[in-house]
């Protein structure tokens, strides 16, 4: 069943459930219309996934601007001497172990959804879809340097959002 995975993907980009559902519907209609362009049927999911992402990015572009939200509170902490203040999370279990239950998977998805939009989209394109930073920048129409800064901040913020979960799950 590809539907739930594709909906989760649209939701990750767009945030709002109604927008994600509309995006998926739109993407499936687009896919159906250009089914002839699918050269390798075994690559169906990847093909559908790319169409869903394109539709999501088009919707994001149609919004006047990506919502500019502050990410400052989720960035690393330093003391007055510029030394890092970092919690000790001990030995971290593997991602497979940490994601064994549905609740943990929901927590990770929620943490990604909680990232400010401008940052979340770069993280999704780069880390989840595996595009290069240059490609992600092109897709979003921003400078590569800006994409790198957003990517790093998004990862740092995701880490901070997942700290309570990592703390709970540590060995």
């Amino acid at each position, binding site marked *: *069943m*590809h*539907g*739930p*995975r*594709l*909906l*989760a*993907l649209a939701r*990750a980009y767009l945030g709002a459930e109604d927008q994600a*559902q509309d995006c*998926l*519907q739109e993407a*499936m*209609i687009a*896919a*159906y219309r250009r*089914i002839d362009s*699918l050269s390798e*049927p075994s690559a*169906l999911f990847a093909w*559908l996934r790319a169409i869903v992402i394109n539709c999501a990015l088009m919707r994001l572009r149609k919004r006047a601007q990506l919502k500019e939200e502050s990410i400052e509170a989720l960035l*690393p902490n*330093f003391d007055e*001497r*510029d*030394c*890092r*203040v*970092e*919690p*000790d*999370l001990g030995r*971290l279990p593997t*991602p*497979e172990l*940490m*994601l064994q239950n*549905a609740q943990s*998977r929901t927590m*990770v*998805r929620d943490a*990604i959804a909680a990232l400010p939009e401008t940052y979340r989209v770069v*993280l999704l394109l780069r*880390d*989840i879809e595996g595009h290069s*930073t240059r490609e992600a920048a092109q897709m979003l129409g921003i400078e590569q340097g800006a994409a*790198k*800064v957003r*990517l*790093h901040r998004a*990862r*740092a913020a*995701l*880490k901070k*959002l*997942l*700290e309570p979960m*990592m703390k709970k799950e540590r060995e």
Partner: protein
Amino acid sequence: MHPMITCREFEAFIIDYLEGELPLSKRLLFKAHLAMCSECKRYLRSYHRARELGIAVFEDVGPQEPPPADVPEDLIEAIVQTCRGEGPSEG
């Protein structure tokens, strides 16, 4: 350039280091700092783990999770059938 860098400077180097774009001189400073700073070591460890969790959760099919409502499964099924050469039903 100072022989050592602060944690804040280290932070600014991370993304270029991971992207393979940090010049050699800065790369040496980055590694030297990382070798000596347990806080930054811990930070990078959980930074990577958070990234891995994000990737893993999207790879996860989650068969035990019920499909949400309003997924256009009929449309997806039609596309899947077309790909299998069964052809869409007209009408």
